[in-house]
């Protein structure tokens, strides 16, 4: 039941992201082990674009990975951190480097042994949800983000360059996503209150 409570705790904060992504498909997230390796491959490809020309290839890029080790995660994290700290790194990719660094840290919780496509990875619900978020967002740029806290705080961040009237359609779409998230939250609260209400009513009648 522990992961049920983690999911419940996550419900206290809603995060709505709008990302720009070309060439999307309706592909669902693959098996968990494939998703982990996909994420790592994507991180490698992204980091390689910004590594100095004389830097050695990352092992995952040089040869297609058949196994991902915890050491590989640590290496990716270190590269992302180093790139982020370099003054020559473009400002717009620093948040993505920060994300890679953070996600590698989080994935260390469940990549404790080598992961391969041939070996089934089993994860509890909260880690599967986390992996799904990581897989979905990849290295895409988040142009708009809204975080809604249970205490009523709402914070919306917009990437510079996307705050103009030229992006009105994008703003409207993001606002609708926030509404969808609220509706889901209301759905859950309504379900719980219906459950608790019926029980209390029945006990006290």
């Amino acid at each position, binding site marked *: 039941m522990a992961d049920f409570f983690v*999911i419940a705790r*996550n419900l206290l904060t809603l995060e709505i*992201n709008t990302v720009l992504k070309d060439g999307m498909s309706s592909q669902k997230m693959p098996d*968990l082990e494939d998703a982990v390796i996909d994420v790592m491959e994507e991180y490698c490809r992204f980091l390689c674009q910004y590594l100095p020309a004389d830097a050695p290839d990352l092992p995952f890029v040089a040869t297609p990975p058949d196994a991902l080790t915890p050491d590989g995660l640590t290496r990716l994290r270190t590269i992302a951190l180093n790139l982020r700290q370099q003054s020559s790194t473009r400002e717009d990719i620093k948040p993505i480097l920060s994300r890679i660094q953070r996600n590698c840290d989080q994935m260390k919780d469940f990549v404790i042994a080598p992961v391969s496509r041939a070996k089934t990875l*089993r994860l509890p619900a909260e880690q599967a949800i986390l992996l799904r978020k990581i897989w979905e967002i990849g290295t895409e740029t988040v142009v708009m983000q809204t975080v809604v806290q249970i205490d009523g705080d709402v914070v919306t961040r917009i990437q510079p360059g996307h705050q103009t009237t030229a992006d009105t359609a994008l703003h409207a*779409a993001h606002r609708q*996503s926030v509404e*969808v998230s609220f509706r889901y939250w209301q759905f859950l609260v309504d379900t719980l209150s219906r459950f608790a209400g019926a029980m209390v009513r029945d006990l006290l009648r």
Partner: protein
Amino acid sequence: MMRALGRWLRHRLMAERATLVDAFRVRLPDPASYARLRQVYADGGVVQVCPLEPTPGVAQRSARVLLQLDGDVMLSVPRDFGAHAQDAALVTRLQSAVGAELQTLQSSLPYNYAALLAVILRVVLLGMGAFGATSSGDALVDWRQTLARIDGLWQVPPATIMAALAAVWHTVGIAWPFLLTASAAVGFSFGRALRLGLMSGGRGIIALALRSRH
């Protein structure tokens, strides 16, 4: 006098039993919408994709909404979103589809708390099984076994609950003078004390029955 009191007690007990049976009656949700709820949990959320009109230079365009189980939403749109006049309208329709999905989920839930508890239990167990497994190899067998186990569990309530209620009913039939005395001692009304006793006893028996089947 004693006969009148006996009639009144019997009447009260019958009323209590009717209320209790109603409270525990498992009203199954609509099978189609329940299947959808199950699928949503197995998928890890609601995913809706809609193709957008092509723009000069980009033939394949689409928007995608992912609503995760913890309420987080991710909207993915192409980089030239807004370039076509229909983009905003199509995404609005996409979001409406997610809203309709939520409506379906909501309507699939029963209004009776015992049944709702059964659905929550089943969905949580299903989620654990689905997330713990994958869709390949022996894991698929595990996943199917999890489903079968939960589906088996779902079959339990009507018969077992009624049997459990009957057992509780008989137990209370013997124990009611003590319940009555105890309720008077703590200042509870007879009905409330009886209901509390029945419900806690009923819940315990149901829990035991479910555990033994599981």
